[in-house]
């Protein structure tokens, strides 16, 4: 079929017209030897992005039966999408169109009109050469399933399950332990408000267990995951004696594996045994919640209690966010149990980031709890030696010591990361796709991280993240709708690929897999984002970044240095 390239130059009012002699640009283009065999339709227009301009363009494309289109105007960042939409109204495939930026990157930056004019001609010639090497790209649709696998039955997992499950969307909830609820179910009072949390969590567990759209697997772990966004294939392994396997298919995966507490006895500076009256915050939560009182190993009520914050903070290199609040809460709980227990809280910096925290802290302080700011502490049995801010050393020995250990990733996190093929960050928690813009996603499309699996945080943040993952899933995996992958992706030419897998190494999204049968690498266009990194990494030139192929870039370059 014969080529017919439309070239339209936008005057952009005076912005281009005044700085570039458009007529002489047109003359230069027409006079170009290399183009003498190509049929060109070159026109100028006052303002192509205007409605009138768009209609003009549409008519031109159709009436001239253009095979390729070049538009010289403003930055593609401004109006490429405008003109692509025009193409979509015509038989012309939008990927046979190239926009040339002769405003921001020519008219506005080159004061000398002649130079600007030459420059514009250069850019347009490059584009004309390039479009000839551009090829039609067609969108395709692929089946996907809306069902979701949730790993971890703690508060985040429960919340996600409840907000995701519907008639059209089945949810599979996998929990290692024999019962749902996770750590949150051990907390009696929830911050910042002082009401009981357990019943609410029990309620969520009830709802999950009663929902016919949620299938719960307790004492079960994920053994393997293959596939990709919209089409994951999962094998679950029962931790019960029979070790039975279950195979599932899901479109998305939510990781909500929670956290553990660092073991203070493993840290230097905390010397005590299980016989000493030294407890972790979690143990005390349980004690107060289940027995409604606080007592020593002897069974008696302590006369004095010292709470120690930031246990393991230095070793871990981060603040666990919720400990300060939790300790204040425990202090209050103990105070409520008895007005005459002496309570000290040894802290370094109080971290009270929630808008409600400060008031609560003031209350508790009022109620007669001594807060002592310290540089560092040493604990031996129940004796605590601490350094004050002024450097002075002091000592407290109290009947009971309560430690707030740092939060660490839940046991098995590394193995799971391995299975899911998603990265951990330097702290050992799962790594988010983008700290600010994509905080509950991972670099693997369709796998989300919520709750403390993502980093130290409280119940409210965990719930919020669970809901955020739902926001992502409900808008990306819509029942009955197909996924339309990006078309400007990479493509591997089998016959050139030597199977060295360098591209697998460099891909940041795990979008390339190796076909053992054929011994070649293959791009999964559902995951590929089209950065072109793999194309550059391939020594054989076996990978082409569609719409940015070497050939296309060369032709642009050739004109640039004409």
């Amino acid at each position, binding site marked *: 079929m014969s080529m017919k390239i439309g070239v339209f130059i936008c005057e952009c009012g005076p912005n281009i017209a005044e700085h570039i002699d458009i007529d002489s640009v047109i003359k230069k283009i027409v006079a170009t030897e290399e183009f003498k065999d190509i049929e060109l339709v070159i026109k100028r227009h006052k303002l192509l992005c205007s409605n009138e301009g768009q209609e003009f363009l549409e008519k031109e494309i159709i009436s001239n039966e253009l095979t390729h289109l070049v538009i010289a105007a403003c930055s593609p960042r401004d109006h490429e999408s405008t003109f692509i939409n025009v193409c979509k109204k015509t038989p012309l495939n939008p990927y046979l169109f190239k926009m040339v*930026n002769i405003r921001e*990157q020519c008219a*506005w*930056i*080159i004061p000398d009109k002649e130079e600007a004019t030459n420059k514009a001609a250069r850019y347009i010639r490059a584009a004309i050469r390039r479009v000839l090497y551009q090829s039609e790209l067609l969108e395709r649709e692929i089946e996907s399933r809306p069902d979701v696998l949730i790993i971890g039955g703690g508060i985040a997992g429960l919340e996600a399950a409840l907000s995701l499950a519907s008639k059209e969307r089945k949810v599979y909830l996998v929990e290692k332990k024999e019962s749902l609820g996770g750590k949150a179910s051990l907390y009696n009072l929830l911050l910042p408000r002082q009401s009981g949390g357990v019943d609410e969590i029990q309620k969520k567990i009830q709802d999950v267990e009663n929902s016919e759209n949620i299938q719960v697997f307790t004492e079960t772990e994920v053994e393997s995951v293959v596939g990709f966004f919209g089409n994951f294939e999962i094998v679950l392994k029962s931790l019960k004696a029979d070790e039975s396997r279950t195979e599932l298919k899901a479109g998305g995966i939510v990781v909500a594996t929670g956290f553990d507490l660092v073991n203070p006895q493993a840290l230097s500076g905390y010397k005590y045994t299980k016989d000493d009256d030294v407890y972790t915050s979690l143990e005390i939560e349980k004690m107060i919640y289940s027995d409604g009182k606080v007592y020593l190993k002897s069974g008696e009520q302590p006369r004095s209690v010292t709470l120690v914050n930031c246990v393991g903070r230095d070793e871990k290199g981060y603040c666990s966010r919720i400990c300060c609040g939790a300790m204040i809460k425990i202090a209050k709980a103990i105070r409520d149990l008895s007005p005459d227990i002496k309570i000290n809280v040894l802290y370094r910096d109080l971290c009270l980031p929630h808008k409600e925290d400060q008031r609560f802290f003031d209350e508790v302080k009022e109620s007669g709890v001594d807060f002592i700011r310290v540089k560092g502490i040493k604990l031996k049995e129940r004796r605590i030696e601490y350094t004050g801010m002024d450097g002075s050393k002091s000592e407290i020995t109290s009947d009971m010591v309560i430690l707030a250990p740092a939060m660490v990733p839940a046991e098995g996190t590394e193995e799971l990361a391995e299975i899911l093929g998603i990265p951990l960050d330097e702290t050992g928690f799962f790594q988010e796709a983008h700290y600010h813009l994509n905080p509950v996603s991972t670099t693997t499309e369709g796998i989300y991280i919520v709750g403390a699996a993502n980093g130290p945080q409280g119940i409210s943040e965990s719930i919020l993240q669970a809901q955020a993952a739902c926001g992502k899933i409900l808008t990306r995996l819509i029942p009955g709708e197909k996924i339309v992958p990006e078309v400007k992706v990479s493509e591997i030419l089998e016959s050139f690929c030597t199977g060295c897998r360098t591209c697998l190494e460099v891909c940041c999204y795990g979008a390339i897999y190796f076909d053992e049968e054929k011994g070649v690498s293959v791009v999964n266009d559902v995951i590929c984002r089209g950065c072109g990194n793999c194309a550059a990494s391939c020594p054989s030139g076996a990978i082409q970044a569609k719409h940015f192929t070497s050939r296309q870039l060369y032709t642009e370059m050739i004109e640039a240095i004409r």
Partner: protein
Amino acid sequence: MNTNGKEGFEPKIVGYLCNWCTYAAADLAGSSKLEISPSFTVIRVMCSSRVDYNLVLTTFFSGADGILIAGCHPGDCHYDKGNYYARRRYGLLKSVLGALEMDSERLQLSWISASEGKRYADVVNEFSNKIKEMGPNPINRNAYY
């Protein structure tokens, strides 16, 4: 054809700019009406990691007097880690050309973020001046290259 000497020499410089940071900076420079050397021609790529050895070397051996690769600052890549790979490849090219003393100064990598319109103009103009100083790419004088 300014292939003779520095006098009146207008270099041909190719800039491979990443779509998300540096190309945006170039637009910002434009809308701020900053003057930029006409010797510099922009070619847009989605990510600086798209720029491969063959592209750079072909550009160079085809007679470009200068080549600028520019993308997001390390850590800011729109594609997670792309610019770190770009940096590696650049390092390799530089040391190959350096070893052969083939004017490796004609190749430059810069990190320019979307808000750095002014800096974009400065980097490009300084680079253009540097290339002007260096004179034409010797390859252009030579039938055998």
